């Protein structure tokens, strides 16, 4: 296996301390950070997010490419995760912002990367996060007028909707088909 190969099989769950470089630039803007499976993670607050991203962007070898943006529901708080790459390389850093679920607001990063437009809309409709300054934060994947935030852990879909309601035939075929089995015999037609 070559040098550049991502370190995969190292234990994922035991975090290591951050590298000196990241510690130096991110130290005062983060509330925590570690290296997990060879990949640094920085935990920050909504106020410090944009300064931190800018600082990562201004490194001599900048983390200039946002590849991914997603949300995670941790029960009482919602986390927004930004995955940044160092140019077109293997190195990657995850920046995480913790938001209280009651008032989940975070500044938008659409000013830095065009990529963030759709993922932010997706996180907004799936987790109920408000992206302050996003130009157009309406539904992206879900139909107009969809109620609820489906990727929150306590979300349950509306079973009375005629399009989603359970089908008696599938729920309990014995009750619907009933009778001796030979009646329903179909074979390979």
């Amino acid at each position: 296996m070559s040098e550049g190969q991502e370190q995969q099989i190292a234990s994922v769950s035991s975090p290591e301390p951050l590298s000196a470089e990241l510690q130096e630039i991110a130290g005062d803007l983060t509330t925590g950070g570690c290296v997990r499976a060879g990949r640094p993670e920085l935990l920050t607050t909504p106020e410090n997010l944009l300064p931190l991203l800018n600082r990562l962007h201004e490194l001599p070898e900048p983390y200039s490419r946002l590849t991914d943006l997603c949300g995670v529901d941790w029960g009482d708080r919602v986390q927004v995760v930004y995955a940044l790459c160092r140019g077109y390389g293997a190195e990657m850093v995850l920046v995480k912002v913790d938001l209280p679920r009651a008032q989940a607001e975070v500044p938008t990063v659409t000013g830095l990367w065009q990529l963030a437009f759709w993922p932010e809309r997706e996180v907004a409709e799936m987790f109920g996060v408000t992206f302050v300054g996003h130009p157009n934060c309406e539904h992206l994947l879900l139909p107009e007028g969809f109620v609820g935030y489906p990727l929150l852990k306590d979300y349950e879909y509306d079973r009375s909707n005629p399009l989603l309601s359970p089908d008696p035939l599938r729920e309990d075929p014995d009750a619907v088909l009933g009778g001796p089995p030979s009646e329903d015999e179909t074979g390979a037609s």
Partner: protein
Amino acid sequence: MGLRELEDRLRQLPGNLPRAPEQPLRRWAQTHHEGGLSVAFINVVDKVLDTGRACSTWGLQFGLACCAIEMMAVGASRYDLDRFGVFFRGSPRQADAMLVAGTLTLKMADVLRRLYDQMPEPRYVIAVGNCAISGGRFYHHAYSVVRGVDRVVPVDIYVPGCPPRPESFIDAIRKLHQLMRRESIADTIGHGERQHEDFFRKRELP
């Protein structure tokens, strides 16, 4: 028609399972069948029309997901659906049968119904793949997948599989042709005027 109207319309229906509709037209046709000459005439017309329908079934390709790729494969060189007179059309106005292949989501449901409404009578629907039949793998878990196309439009042929083999697809087309050959013009006249009540219209295979 938006999604909300569609949902309301479906809410007013008695149940989700297909049921045999009350068909005044069928009764009318049966009384006319009993009178000698008209029966012979209708039989001849039926034969001609049914053969015509079954030999050139133009399909509205309603490819939604994975099954659509298999539908493309059926139309391509190895399985060559043209042998059965089935051509894929993009427009509902030119189609006899709607081939719904794939996962129907909430956002797509009213589009499906609208396209179905635009098809000329007599029209048929084939539900290809388990997502189209019942929601399939999404039935128990998903919040955005319609549990079967037959909640939105009446389905004539169900093709199980995930996705079904192309042969399975061809088999379904042939069964649809069987259905068509069993039809009488007396049943199909005036379909356009029929109301939403016989939404779950059924024809049966022998």
